[in-house]
């Protein structure tokens, strides 16, 4: 009996709830490594359909795969980590919804077909994991950005464009794009260059969303953030920086 088998049997003996938690619904051989790498060893980890990861089953353009994460069916979400098992750089983005709805829309680069997962930590310290498979012919991570080949973008580096929409069900939606090459460092001769941090606050400076970015976010990333009615504000602002220390700051006017 190998170790995995032994663990599975032990888990079964502990009851159906725990056993279910041990079986990766996406059946990926990398899940064990992902769990070890990104989640605390002592933490309670459950696969939970309340964490929704929405992405196309097939992504023809591996450089710009749209992904939406929605953990709003869970109570008291403190942070969400998004990763792709088979990406050479697995970590994609980590966010803390500090007043915004616990969800985020963004674009990623995928090197090959992979599960894309979101692990949400709730106030009780447990991690809830949801995900979906995305099939792609790949190559997204080892290609240079179009930005890195063009001198034009440098003048616009860090430029933010955005808009605020009222939501039918109340609250507001903010979409914002940041001009940035988001180079992974895996293309020959082009160092890693990517947004590390973005903070969204209301006009008074009260935090709404903290985002930590990693290399696999797509070039010129576009984010979708929803604000609940109670936190809707007269205006918003965003601030952050990339891994070279370039500042990103902008107001988001209605």
């Amino acid at each position, binding site marked *: 009996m190998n170790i995995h088998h032994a663990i599975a049997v032990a888990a079964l003996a502990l009851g159906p709830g725990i056993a279910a938690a041990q079986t990766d619904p996406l059946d990926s051989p990398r899940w064990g490594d992902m769990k070890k790498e990104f989640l605390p060893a002592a933490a309670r980890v459950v696969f939970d359909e309340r964490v929704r990861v929405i992405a196309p089953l*097939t992504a*023809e353009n591996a450089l710009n795969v749209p992904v939406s994460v929605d953990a709003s069916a869970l109570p008291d979400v403190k942070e969400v980590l998004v990763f792709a098992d088979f990406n050479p750089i697995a970590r994609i983005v980590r966010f803390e919804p500090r007043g915004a709805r616990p969800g985020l829309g963004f674009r990623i680069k995928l090197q090959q077909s992979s599960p894309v997962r979101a692990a949400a930590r709730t106030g009780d310290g447990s991690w809830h994991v949801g995900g979906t498979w995305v099939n792609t012919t790949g190559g997204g991570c080892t290609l240079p950005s179009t930005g890195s080949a063009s001198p034009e973008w440098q003048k616009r580096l860090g430029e*933010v464009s955005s808009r605020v929409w009222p939501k039918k069900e109340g609250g507001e939606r903010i979409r914002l794009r940041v001009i940035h090459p988001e180079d992974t460092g895996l293309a020959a001769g082009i160092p890693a260059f990517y947004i590390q941090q973005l903070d969204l606050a209301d006009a008074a400076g009260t935090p709404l969303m903290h985002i930590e970015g990693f290399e696999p976010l797509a070039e010129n990333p576009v984010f979708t953030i929803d604000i609940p009615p109670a936190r809707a504000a007269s205006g918003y602002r965003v601030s952050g920086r990339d891994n070279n220390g370039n500042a990103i700051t*902008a107001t988001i006017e209605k």
Partner: protein
Amino acid sequence: MSAPARALIALFALGWALLLAAADMDYGLAPEKIADDTWVLTGRSEDFSFTNGGNIVNTAFIVTQAGVLVIDSGPSRAYGEQLRRAIARITRQPVVRVINTHHHPDHFLGNQAFAPDTLAALPGTIHGIHTEGGSFNDNMYRLAGDWMAGTEPVAPIHPLAAGPLELGGHQFELIALEGHTGADLAILDRSTGVLFAGDLVFHDRAPTTPHARLPAWQASLDTLEALPFRHLVPGHGPVANDAGPIRQTRAWLGWLDRTLRQAADEGLDMTEALALPLPAEFRRLAVVDAEYRRSVGQLYPALEQQTLRTGKARE
């Protein structure tokens, strides 16, 4: 089904397809006579695959007293060679002109099978083959496998200009348009009333949009519909004897453009735009789900960017 099981089945299917392909890479090309001197080879209404070897495209040839004019050369060297043999079974006239209607891979990767001196296209198409032909070819190897063996992109040397072209008693009109790509050539044979529309017109198959500019494409469809044709050869899908395929293509592009603009205006994320339902009238188009998904990926980023405003940087 589990992912490893799916992967295993995919691998098995892949191996099987490769075996079949290696054993018999025969496209089974069967030219169909649609008018005097005029033959069409109709491809399958599918995506590129290891099974169809890329034969999802329509090609055609016209046998004149001064030699054969070929319109598009297919997705691979093997297709081009089999097309040449299919022509030789019908006529002893030599191929004197091979015209690529635009620079998409299934329309020019058979060029190798023909004498370089016969190859011609609009200047924009020649440029597109020079700049993108290599990556198209690499991609076709991934999508069609062994069928592509030995295929390399060959750009035509003869640039074409819009206007009349006389060949062996046939009065052709070359019509330079755009919208499906930056350079789309339609060819009207005034002698037979056959209009070869290239990929400006799809029939019972959802249009592809990797290089599309929808307003320009719509204007090109208006131009085509006004032409005096009796038979219409679309780039993909069955030959028609009326303007139905033009109207079908226009209806799809119009819906696509309106729907994606509205989605962007309403602030939808791309994943939400992907989830929008397709109207019933388009459900009968082949590969419509896959083409909608690809079109969102190709068209939505620019449309959503138009809805965003550049904010003032804080001092």
